[in-house]
């Protein structure tokens, strides 16, 4: 009943054609149509690289939680682990390198913990020296503990680093937004002196304004206020960081302008 008897000779060819048409269309769809959403590349790359680097460090495999029994003689003669590239056998050395890197990038929040850790490690070494002949197991345990502590510490560092980097990004983009708006302000309308005005603006994720900018504090000169408001509208779209999770910081912005101050 699907096809009439007299249509039989054509039916196979027609079926092949039909499948061919669909394959062609599907292929055209995949090739010609760009289904990837693209986002304009922003200039935030420096910061982004920074945070990526921190994350990458976190991803560096922290040596196996169960370290092989390392000959302790080897461990002792290193009071200050020298950073040699590619020192494999010792998990501790690697962590030390890691810590150094992190330290370089985030100077403030971590130094204290680092010192404390170093002290602890030193203590552990002393103990290890003392108990060397008998309590191999205890040393192993201690090492384990130290390792765990290190791991936790690095994770914490990474988290603080990220928030720090984010704050940096937010500040930088607010500065960028302000700079962009300022470049559009017609300063001659603001007269002499140093008027200051505050605007509150709402943004949507594309960088456009979600409503009209609200004047919070007037400069006292309506012409100047209008000039700044026009400038805000002209600077659409405003620069926003690529990281969508940061957008909540930009939804409502309070911006202060001093048009005559450069």
């Amino acid at each position, binding site marked *: 009943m699907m096809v009439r008897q007299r249509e039989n000779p054509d039916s196979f060819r027609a079926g092949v054609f*039909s499948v061919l048409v*669909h394959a062609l269309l599907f292929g055209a769809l995949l090739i010609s149509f760009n*289904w990837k*959403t693209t986002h304009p590349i922003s200039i935030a790359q420096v910061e982004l690289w920074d945070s990526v680097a921190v994350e990458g460090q976190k991803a560096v495999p922290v040596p196996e939680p169960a370290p092989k029994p390392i000959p302790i003689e080897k461990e002792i003669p290193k009071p200050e682990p020298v950073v040699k590239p590619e020192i494999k056998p010792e998990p501790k050395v690697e962590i030390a390198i890691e810590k150094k890197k992190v330290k370089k990038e985030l100077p403030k929040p971590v130094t204290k913990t680092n010192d404390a850790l170093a002290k602890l490690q030193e203590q552990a070494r002393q103990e290890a020296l003392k108990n060397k002949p008998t309590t191999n197991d205890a040393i192993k345990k201690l090492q384990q503990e130290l390792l765990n502590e290190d791991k936790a510490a690095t994770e914490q560092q990474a988290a603080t680093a990220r928030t720090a980097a984010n704050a940096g990004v937010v500040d930088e983009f607010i500065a960028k937004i302000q700079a962009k708006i300022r470049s559009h302000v017609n300063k001659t309308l603001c007269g002499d002196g140093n008027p200051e005005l505050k605007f509150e603006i709402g943004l949507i994720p594309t960088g456009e304004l979600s409503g009209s900018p609200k004047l919070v504090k007037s400069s006292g000169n309506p012409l100047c206020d209008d000039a700044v408001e026009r400038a805000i509208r002209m600077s659409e779209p405003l620069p926003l960081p690529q990281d969508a999770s940061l957008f909540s910081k930009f939804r409502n912005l309070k911006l202060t302008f001093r048009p005559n101050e450069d």
Partner: protein
Amino acid sequence: MNASSDMSFLTLVAGASLPVQLVMLILLITSLFSWWYIFIKVASIKRAEKDADHFEETFWSGGDLSKLYEVVTAGRRKPQGIASIFEAGFKEYVKHKQQGRMEISDVMEGARRAMRAAYNREMDDLDAHLPFLASVGSVSPYIGLFGTVWGIMNAFRGLSNVAQATLTQVAPGIAEALVATAIGLFAAIPAVIAYNRFASSVDRLSVRYESFMEEFTNILQRKS
């Protein structure tokens, strides 16, 4: 949700909810079938037109009708199109003639009835699958729309659970859902175009068959 999420066609289809995927599957099958019938119809209508041209040419070139009848019935396959109408009418006419003692009007009436029956069979074959194409053309956009509405409903329901609603949370769902409408339109547009074209072709063929019937009746009447 990541702002730069992968929106390739395949992920859109794979990420859609089950009813939407079902709708897409139905539409794909419908589209395959409708294109299949379209190609079958193109071939069969083209063949019917060629047969009609060929037969009319030989018929009007003069010559003996019984000889033509022999040629038509000699072929291995059953005569099709005008040839089958001619064959049915002439056969009936000859049968009645052989019985003798029949009114000429009765003979003509019998031949006409036989031709009418053959004509109806031909028309049935020509009209085959056209209703299917018509249904696909009119219904598949609605099926696609159903899938889209369902998908968008889901997308918005998911939105109600979030405190801060942004476009990135609904956009993928809506894009997924719209694929269903796209497939529905892809199935419907060719079906409608093909239906209209085939309907007009079949109409012209049927007019040709009917006028042939009238003319052939006249020839038979003159002959007897």
